């Protein structure tokens, strides 16, 4: 197979702007190979590099006595006392879900679960925040059905209770639904696993499912605005395999307990590329990969395809060499692939070999460190127009209309499709302010909620950002929990437009201020930009996932009132 010639136009097809391509040429002092171009495009797209958002994300409060690990790893880690920690994060799978709702949403759940268990935590709760177009829109019904079914099929089979979330309908999401998935897990505070490699000459091991051509170019897709032809292009979507993920979870937890793991990283978008670079970068080491050893599902896969494949249910690990036999036996037991595909090297180098050829030879640190970062121009959102006067109507009728409206009616039809009780620790089920899940074998419990009100964020991003955090705080408090920390999933339109960037900046300011004031640091999160179709942006939707702690279930406040109870309204 001949590789296409690398030039500016091929770089543009990879989503690299002319100045970004020039940056690569300057860095290498030569033209990159085809595989190298693929690697750069994966590392430098919005999804992996956070090039438009980094500047602002740095302003969020991320510290506190309860924080064991803030943003930057696969998930955030919070101390919950007694040597235990909760590990959690939220992540979007918006574009894939619009193209193939069932599989897109399912693989979104799979991805976030892996983020949690790569850190050594057993997932104990999942949530999902969903935004769809108006009910009457011809696509909405099948999107809703597919997304809910996909989330259920993955979480139910994997065996994590899906205990909460949000569902909203608004025309701004007609061409661009949002699927944000949250997962939380439990671990021992002194047994958290990180991604930084350490030690020279250590084996780099590939774990899990085989590599196929799934979503090659997918990371690039997730960061590009949709056009009319989005439905025609139909890139290969990934199919989720929750059964393999469940085995991968059990195998990874056994592996971690065996003491074989130096560092571990899940393969998400542009799997092998991002995971290998991240492990090397964090550990100040180089990585050499021999792709001949990569377990492949399809024949004649090229280096380019392997480096960009988004096949699911895979991990990359740096192994203690003396533990190889133990580790291999665990993966045999679970019938999963285990292959040594490279090793750590002392120099700052990312060397990729395939078929006896060097396919990529890059300065490793530059792949993340030299990634472009933008200070995008932004304008403050102008004051919203006042609302039209509220029509006079009969209060009882108004109440009935509100309760029957798509955005306020019961969500039982959603959560009943999710196993929200598996693991037998769900103390407060969906349908309350926040769900409460017991810490297995203890009297402690964790409370979970997901909140945002996008129309507030549109009207006033700063206040909308604050409101989302405050609502999450209230939902947790109402169960009797002490709020601990949040994860955010920032969904916005095209950041190259100053008004959209203004919404983004405003929401971050508001979230930051509220988190600071309420002592709820942001410990993980995800940014999804370019949520636009034909130039129409979604409502600014910074989903907030929040976690609180009940030190004893005796503190839990039930929601169901008893006859004769007094009803009080507090606050203002």
């Amino acid at each position, binding site marked *: 197979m001949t590789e296409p010639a690398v030039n500016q136009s091929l770089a543009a097809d990879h989503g690299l702007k002319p100045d970004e391509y020039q940056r690569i040429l300057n860095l290498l002092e030569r033209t990159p190979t085809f595989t190298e171009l693929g690697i750069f495009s994966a590392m430098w797209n919005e999804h992996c590099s956070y090039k438009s958002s980094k500047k602002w994300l740095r302003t969020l409060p991320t510290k506190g006595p309860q924080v064991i690990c803030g943003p930057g790893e696969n998930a955030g880690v919070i101390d919950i006392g007694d040597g235990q920690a909760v590990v959690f994060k939220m992540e979007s799978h918006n574009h894939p879900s619009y193209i193939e709702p069932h599989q897109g949403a399912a693989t979104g759940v799979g991805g976030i679960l892996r983020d949690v268990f790569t850190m050594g935590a057993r997932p104990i709760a999942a949530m999902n925040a969903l935004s769809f177009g108006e009910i009457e829109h011809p696509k909405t019904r099948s999107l809703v059905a597919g997304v809910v*079914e996909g989330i259920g099929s993955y979480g*139910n089979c994997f065996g994590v209770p899906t205990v909460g979330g949000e569902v909203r309908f608004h025309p701004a999401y007609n061409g661009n639904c949002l699927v944000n998935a949250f997962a939380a897990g439990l671990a021992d505070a002194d047994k958290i696993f990180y991604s930084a490699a350490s030690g020279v000459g250590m084996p780099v091991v590939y774990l899990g499912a085989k590599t196929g051509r799934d979503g090659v170019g997918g990371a690039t897709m997730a960061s590009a605005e949709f056009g009319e032809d989005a439905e025609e292009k139909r890139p290969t979507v990934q199919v989720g395999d929750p*059964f393999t993920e469940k085995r991968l979870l059990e195998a990874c937890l056994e592996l971690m307990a065996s003491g074989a793991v130096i560092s571990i990283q899940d393969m998400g978008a542009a799997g092998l590329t991002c995971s290998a670079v991240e492990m090397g970068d964090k550990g100040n080491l180089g990585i050499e990969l021999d792709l001949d050893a990569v377990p492949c599902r399809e024949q004649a896969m090229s280096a380019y395809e392997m480096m960009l494949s988004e096949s699911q249910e895979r991990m990359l690990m740096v192994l203690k060499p003396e533990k190889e036999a133990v580790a291999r036996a665990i993966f045999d037991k679970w*019938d999963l692939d285990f292959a040594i595909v490279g090793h750590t090297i002392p120099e700052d180098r990312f060397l990729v070999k395939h078929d006896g050829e060097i396919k990529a030879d890059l300065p490793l640190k530059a792949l993340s460190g030299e990634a472009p970062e933008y200070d995008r121009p932004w304008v403050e959102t102008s004051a919203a127009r006042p609302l039209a006067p509220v029509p006079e109507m009969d209060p009882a009728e108004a109440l009935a209309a509100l309760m029957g409206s798509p955005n306020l009616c019961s969500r039982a039809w959603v*959560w009943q499709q999710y196993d929200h009780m*598996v693991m037998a620790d769900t103390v407060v089920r969906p349908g309350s302010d926040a769900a409460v899940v017991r810490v297995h074998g203890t009297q402690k419990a964790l409370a979970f909620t997901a909140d945002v009100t996008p129309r507030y964020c549109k009207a006033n991003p700063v206040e909308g950002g604050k409101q989302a955090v405050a609502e999450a705080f209230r939902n947790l408090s109402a169960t009797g929990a002490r709020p601990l920390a949040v994860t955010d999933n920032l969904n916005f339109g095209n950041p190259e437009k100053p008004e959209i960037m203004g919404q983004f900046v405003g929401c971050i300011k508001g979230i930051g201020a509220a988190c600071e004031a309420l002592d709820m640091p942001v410990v993980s999160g995800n940014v999804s930009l370019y949520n636009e179709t034909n130039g129409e942006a979604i409502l600014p939707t910074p989903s907030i996932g929040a976690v609180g702690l009940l030190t004893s279930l005796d503190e839990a406040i039930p929601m169901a009132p008893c006859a004769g109870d007094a009803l009080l309204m507090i606050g203002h």
Partner: protein
Amino acid sequence: MKSAVIVFPGSNCDRDLAVALGAAAGRPASMVWHKDAALPPGLDVVAIPGGFSFGDYLRCGAIAARSPIMRAVVDFAHRGGIVLGICNGFQILIEAGLLPGALMRNQTLKFVCRDVHLSVETLQSPFTSAFGNQRVIRVPVAHHDGAYIADYALAARLEAEDRIAFRYVDADGDATEAANPNGSVGNIAGVLSDNRRILGMMPHPERLADPQLGGTDGAPMFRSLVEAVAEVA
């Protein structure tokens, strides 16, 4: 009571079931891996948990039913051992031929997770004897393929032989169509083998056997097992 929980790849209610059995028996249940060829010696009860064994790919329970440990479970059952299958465990017992009928996709075609009411249809079994006067219980279901299918002859025989252990009912104990979460024939939620020592059921008594989880209606099942075993000993 010495019990064992069989663990297949994809089982995910194995821990819950072991907790419920262990709590009732006062000794932990052993966990047995599907690739093992034999059960631990001296067992009183073998339990097959819920979940998605082998992903429930092909048909629910089909692949698990043909794994090495199931030969030992079938032998154990044929020797008169007590075997309990919950949810996916029920599907596996049916696929293994230990219980009659079939379980098919819910009539709604959707996964359903919620509490249902069950009527305890018989006390004549090692699984139900301790329900006593408590003939309508509330326990959760969580499944996608729980519609119990039996032809007319089979349904009539199960009825005549008092082998229907549980039916889906409303809070008043009536087996209405609305109370049926999945389209099971005759609202059947659980059935017994002809020697009454094998029970398969879709609902999850192990999920409501702890007051902190909002109820203990499932607990008498595990007490029944302990009593039945103690009586023999």
